[in-house]
């Protein structure tokens, strides 16, 4: 086992390497490209016995990933943002083939306007697809989660593809210390893919994507995929326990940090969690009984584990780094549905939208969110959702608008003359 500085992207590539992948269909997109470049470099140097193929789009790439997985080999691919959306038709299609593989998504905000910086609206667009989802907070977690994803996605009780998500820039390009497990430890945890009945061959044609007429077969196949995803919860717990034995690190489906006696909990996903831990520590020093609940697994949704972690908590500040237009934060809505009517559920779930397009969430903002949520819990009155946005930020936008509107006026004058 060696400890070295790795970016989130390099950690994802190391996960694929240690999983001894066979095939990686690829298409470049910022901020993901380094992952496939690293794999290409290792294949070229003879350090990884796999085949990497550049496809002409993410749509083809995900189709190729599913088709290759259906032959029973171990497949890895990666994309981000607009790329994930471009492949979205195949994302929904291949999950129904029940041929497992791992797709790393490097989260990046969606157009419009286009950006390179992270938020989770991209990966949440795949929420209902049948792909399982693991969300990571550190580079270490990225490497370990790729290994966990193969183990539980390939399990014969599950057989579903898995997305491992990491944040662009804040993880993808950020180096931090990572322990790389030994190949022996990984081999003991993750044996070669036992494809069972998944063995599509050219000589034995099988139609993987039948058309059905009538709702009976349609509902059957769709609901079976849903049941498999739900059943993956306990398979995940088994895999996480096996990983802890093999590699010495615990990755529960839900992280509960300093929650045992917490009165206030932050609820969020992704790399914002390390900053939230810091805020929890500072708040504790100041006498506030704060904690953090972070689902690592978002599909399947670990509702019971989340409810357990929040039992006895008075108020929750949900920080959504995503936006469902016309509704609000996705995590907030899902949490509310999971906790509705549960005994001992928190009195207030306050919705905050923060971190859109990579915006930092500051320590004082965590403090403010804690105060607002606690007040809501004590008074039994929940305030409307709040976008984390300051007067200074609006002032910057106003400057840009002044230029744009000046330009429009100038062009209109030109057009008339």
């Amino acid at each position, binding site marked *: 086992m060696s400890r*070295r*500085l790795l*970016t989130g992207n390099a950690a994802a590539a190391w996960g694929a390497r240690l999983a001894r992948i066979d095939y990686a269909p690829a298409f470049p997109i910022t901020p993901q490209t380094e992952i496939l470049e690293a794999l290409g470099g290792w294949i070229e140097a003879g350090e990884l016995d796999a085949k990497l193929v550049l496809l002409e789009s993410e749509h083809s790439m995900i189709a190729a990933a599913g088709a290759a997985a259906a032959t029973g080999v171990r497949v890895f691919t990666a994309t981000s943002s607009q790329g994930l959306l471009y492949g979205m038709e195949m994302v929904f299609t291949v999950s129904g083939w029940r041929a497992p593989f791992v797709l790393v998504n490097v989260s990046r905000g969606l157009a*419009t*306007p286009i950006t*390179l910086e992270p938020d989770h609206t991209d990966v949440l667009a795949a929420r209902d697809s049948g792909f399982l989802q693991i969300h990571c*907070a*550190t580079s*270490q977690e990225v490497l370990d989660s790729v290994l966990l994803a193969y183990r539980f996605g390939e399990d014969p009780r599950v057989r579903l593809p898995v997305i491992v998500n990491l944040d662009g*820039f*804040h*993880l993808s*390009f*950020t*180096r*931090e*210390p990572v322990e790389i497990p030994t190949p022996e430890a990984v081999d003991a945890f993750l044996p070669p893919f036992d494809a069972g009945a998944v063995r599509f061959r050219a000589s034995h044609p099988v139609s993987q994507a039948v058309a059905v007429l009538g709702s009976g077969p349609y509902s059957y196949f769709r609901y079976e995929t849903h049941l498999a995803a739900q059943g993956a919860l306990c398979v995940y717990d088994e895999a996480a326990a096996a990983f*802890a034995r093999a590699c*010495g*690190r*615990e*990755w*529960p489906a839900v*992280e509960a*940090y300093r929650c045992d006696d917490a009165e206030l909990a932050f609820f969020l996903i992704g*790399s*914002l969690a*390390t*900053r939230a*831990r*810091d805020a929890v*520590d*500072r*708040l504790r*020093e*100041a006498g506030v009984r704060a904690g953090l609940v972070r689902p690592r697994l978002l599909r399947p949704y670990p509702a019971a584990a989340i409810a357990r972690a929040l039992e006895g908590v008075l108020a929750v500040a949900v920080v959504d780094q995503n936006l469902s237009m016309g509704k609000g934060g996705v995590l907030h809505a899902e949490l509310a549905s999971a906790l509705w009517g549960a005994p001992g559920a928190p009195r207030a779930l306050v919705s905050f939208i923060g971190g859109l397009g990579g915006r*930092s969430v*500051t*320590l*004082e*903002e965590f*403090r*403010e969110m804690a105060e607002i949520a606690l007040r809501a819990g004590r008074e039994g009155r929940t305030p409307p959702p*709040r*976008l*984390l*946005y*300051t*007067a*200074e930020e*609006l002032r910057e936008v106003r400057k840009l*608008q002044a*230029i*744009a*509107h*000046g*330009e*429009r006026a*100038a*062009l209109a004058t030109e057009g008339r003359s």
Partner: protein
Amino acid sequence: MASLVDLLGASAGNVFRIRFHGRGGQGIKLGARALGSAFFAEGFEVQDAPRYGAERRGAPIAAYVRAGRAPIHERGPIREADLVVVADESLIPVATAGVLEGIAPASVLLVNGLTSAETWRERLRLRGPIATLPPAPASAGAPPAGSACAGAAARLVGAISRAALEGALREEVAPLGARAVEASVALALHAFDLMAPHAGSVVEGEAPRLAALPSPNWIDLPRELPDVAAPDVFASATSVEVRTGLWRTARPVLDPDRCHRCSWICSSFCPDGAISAGAEGLPAFDYDHCKGCLVCVAVCPSHAIRAVAEADAEGPREAAR
């Protein structure tokens, strides 16, 4: 067995926060990584990251290094830095580069350039320590500024040995080849030695006290009509507004005596439309927008256009507005 709490670490203690500024191509990402690796070799917990967008060579970029004795929980840009490293002094007056952002009285400023520390102190009205590093000549295959700045920064923080610095440079520059490694190591060690008078002048920032922080100045966004709230830009005007001349490290300069007045050639090849036919058919350069790609130098049939390093050029980087 490590629990999740152990893995992510307990409360953060004091942390070195170091911000690098430079231009694309000057080796800033590499310099920050070398400094990060040197800290790591000295037993620190480290986080380092470059930050850039869709820009190209010459555009302002930044990189960040955090190092402490406990795992680092902060992420993203460093606003309040203990050390600000400026690899190219011409960036200091460029507002969009944000070089002076969040500089506190205790922050150390390191400037790679010929201007003296006294001049900077007076011009910028800074009270904190300023160190200057004379620019190194361009050398074999290694972007000089990044390596030299890494060496100087390592000495300024005082927690990194010469050997750890050299090891880190060898590791990070290795992909560029053996000659680049030797050149980078020499540059970094030279800069390390030059900074001896300032050794250890950078002090780790303390963890912020929660009670001392101001309340966030949040507002409710007003709902506005689409003719205000749609993100429209008007290309013909916006391209004028964005002064890409700031990205330039070298500029094309015309020798009118050699010019054949075939300005349709240089102006057609210019990818930014920054050359027009001027008086008597001589090409005129728009230095507000010329990015310094020097395609015109390459295509000029009579070799009448030469490249002049921006530091040696006469006249401002962009025309006065």
